[in-house]
């Protein structure tokens, strides 16, 4: 079952109404679905299409544009090693070779036990801390081969479960907007007036 669960359908509706047009919720919903299943399944895309009112093809078109959406299962931990310039200057290639040896898979591969997927990544906005890597989009910086060995061992031993949730989970906190505080989204064609505070006077 890889359509959204009932709980997630509720969340999905909360997300959709925040946007002036439902399709805008597509990427957040794809994340939600990847959080649920670890990757994006065919049925999930069909379901999201129904939820936001577009064809499955459109969902697929959008989803396949973005690197983070995986269409096949990946390891519980996706290890992305940055290889862009600053990291490359600081030894990213060596780090990658080391990781390949340690995990016994080539970049792009998943360990047979399904725990790790190793991948090349592009600049992670931490260039001053090169070389860098991310485990499920959470950082390790100025990583030495020894650091990497320890990280992998600890992940495998479940010692870092608190810091690194399984692949698919990004922020562990969700936005919540209390109905009494929310202004609410309106389709642009339903808004014709200038905002109330543009009356030439101070708002307070």
């Amino acid at each position, binding site marked *: 079952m890889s359509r959204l669960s009932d709980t997630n359908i509720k969340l999905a509706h909360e997300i959709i109404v925040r946007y002036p047009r439902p399709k805008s919720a597509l990427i957040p919903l794809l994340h939600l679905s990847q959080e649920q299943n670890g990757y994006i399944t*065919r049925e999930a895309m069909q379901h999201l299409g129904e939820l936001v009112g*577009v064809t499955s*093809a459109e*969902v*697929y*078109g959008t989803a396949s544009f973005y690197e983070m959406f995986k269409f096949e299962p990946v390891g519980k931990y996706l290890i992305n090693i940055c290889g862009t310039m600053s990291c490359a200057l600081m030894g990213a290639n060596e780090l990658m070779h080391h990781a390949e040896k340690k995990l016994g898979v080539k970049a792009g591969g998943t360990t047979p036990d399904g725990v790790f997927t190793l991948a090349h990544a592009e600049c992670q906005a931490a260039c001053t801390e090169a070389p860098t890597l991310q485990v499920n989009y959470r950082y390790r910086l100025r990583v030495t081969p020894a650091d990497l060995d320890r990280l992998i061992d600890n992940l495998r031993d479940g010692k870092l479960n608190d810091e690194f949730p399984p692949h698919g989970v990004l922020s562990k906190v969700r936005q919540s907007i209390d109905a009494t505080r929310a202004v609410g989204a309106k389709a642009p064609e339903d808004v014709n007036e200038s905002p109330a505070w543009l009356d030439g006077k101070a708002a307070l």
Partner: protein
Amino acid sequence: MTIVDPIKETAPVDPNIVNITINDKPVAARKGELIIAAADRTEDFIPRFCYHPRMTPVGMCRQCLVEVETPRGPMMVVSCMTPVAEGQIVHTATDSVKKAQEGVLELLLANHPLDCPVCDKGGECPLQDQAFSHGPGESRFVEEKRHYEKPIAISDIVYLDRERCILCDRCTRFADEVAGDALITFTSRGNDTQVLTFPDEPFSSYFSGNTVQICPVGALTAKPYRFKARPWDLEQTESTCTSCSVGCRTVVQSSRDELVRYQGVDIDPVNWGWLCDRGRYNFESVNSPDRLTTPLIKSGSELVATSWSVALESAARMIRLALAQNTNSVAILGGARGTNEDAFAWAMLADKLGINQRDAQLGDGLSPEVFNLAQATIDQTCAASTIILLAPDLKEELPVLYLRVRDAAQKRKSRIVEFSSHDSGLTPYAWRSVGFEPGNQAQIVRDALATPEMKEQLTRGEVVVVVGRANLAESEVFTLQALAEIFAAVPSAKVLPVLRRGNVRGAVTAGLTPQNNSGDAIDILNAAAAGKIECLILLGVDPMSDVADSGLVQRALTQTKNLISIDTMINDSNRNADLVLPAASYGEKNGTTTNLEGRISNVAQKITPCGTSRPDWMIATELSIAMAVDIGVSSLEDLNKKLVSTVAAFAPSSDAKSTHGDGVLMARETPVTISGKASKAVDRNAYNYRLVVSRTMYDSAQATVSSPSLAGIITDSAIFVNPLDLARIGVADGASVRVGAEGTNIVIAIKAHNGVHRGVAWLPFNHTGVDIRPLLNITSDVVDVRIEPIK
């Protein structure tokens, strides 16, 4: 009868001419026009791939780069997204422009497989042509090219070769923006970008053939044409599609005297270059091995081949015998499939013989009085502030009109007010969609139009009513009544009558409509069933599959003493005829046709008629001679002259040239008004479901069934109800149920459908599998059925 001028269609002259120069030559451009469009009216061709004048420009292939002078020196811009501006100076062939254009072409060819010799597009390929005219002359790309699995079928009809694709976004844009079927999209990113469907969800659009036509390379090919011909072997002529009454302009192409392809031609007032897949691909039926090649005459219980002279003699004898009884013993059904000239020749013959009973409609149309209401053209409809739909599902029955109306709603901001019993292709685009149960539409329309918001909307500008028959299981009266309600609310409204058969409007206007208060098609069939018709002439119609009440037709055909069929093939109606005359088909004859808005345009012969078959008009002429009532026609030109001088409506087409290109609108009578006859349907018993029977694009119509590429798309019959009703009936989606009405019942699969209103059951007409016609009875105003689970 007063004839008013044909509606003037000259485009309003834009007072806002913008003066620019292209390559130092002055050009009068139109305000808001793109540079590339302005250049298209000069000799300076700007190469392009992604630009298409009927779609939003995206500026992504970068092939159309030109230089525009600015205060800061020449600037390189894409001409397909840069509007003209007063005094603008454009250069399309400077060294840097040439360099840029060559560069883009070289890049496009870098990953292109260059398999031109085995490519359908080879010889008519914009990539090939522009590589020659604007390319670098050599490629320096020595890397390995992109590889993909060679053509993959993305639908029943269309194949995609991703290696040839240059990612111009034309097909995907068309699918989304023009057709509203976003079933193909770009997937992945960057150098891996590909056009694809969702896995296992085919590009099942009614308009998919257009993507093949507009693909600037051989990436998209269509099954009916693949490897059929090379462009340099093609011969072509411009014509008009008569598969339905939209009247799309086409190019008919043949190779070695066989039809091989239709392409859409862009004319402003009608189809904008688009065709639907049925119209585009059912030419296969013209080439069908089942085509009749000689006349057939009944001998014992079999039809055997005979000569034309024997056949014409026999026909004359049969008609003469019948006329000897009285003129009401002969009737002519059909004629909507032929040309105006065909219809007129038969009308003249009928006049001479005193045959009053003739009808080009088959009981599923509307009283010809709708043609006498104030008329709107397609363009006027699509420019109206409010478009009221009191019509069948345009997407299913008049596909390209659907595209135009959808475009009006999406881009031109017309508001659609739809009245229907189940959702149509336009429902998602409707401003308001009001449901009704067959029989009570007049009341619903009256109430809906009386709400304040609707009243306000109706005063915003022009109101056009698109009116036709949405339900074959319902009397015409209800539609006319509802129409009268609309006129009561908006007296200035205009109508666009949407009767679906190709040339029904032309045939009716040319005289194939009941004369001297005689009965219509249903009356004729009733008379035949009562044994009162001695000779029935089927002029290109198959009432067994076309008329809702098949029981009635069956009785009529058996009771008729002499049945003459003029047709291209054997079908259920003429299988037991006494005489079958082989008719020339579309593409095999010249003439003119009239579309639903009354536009007269030419149809053209491209190939020799099959066997000894001949056009309907010729058969009428020969028959008139055989019957010694010569209608005096010696040639088609002759016939056409007679038509335009006798029937005032056709007068505007007296210059044959006027029927080319955009065609010309019929002259019209001064509009009359309509008053619906009050009538009320019986109330529905709450346990029953009221039937809606309507057509879909792919049904068992002769031309579809005999086109191999389309035949496989026809689906089996099923009955559709609202999911809540399905639950009430207590069966699973797809289960078999017993559907009963007045003593008959059928067993058929039932399916849930969100677009069907509660209490209504929708049955698509003329599909394969279970025959649903026993449920239909032409004499009842509405049909209510019981639906029961099978224990």
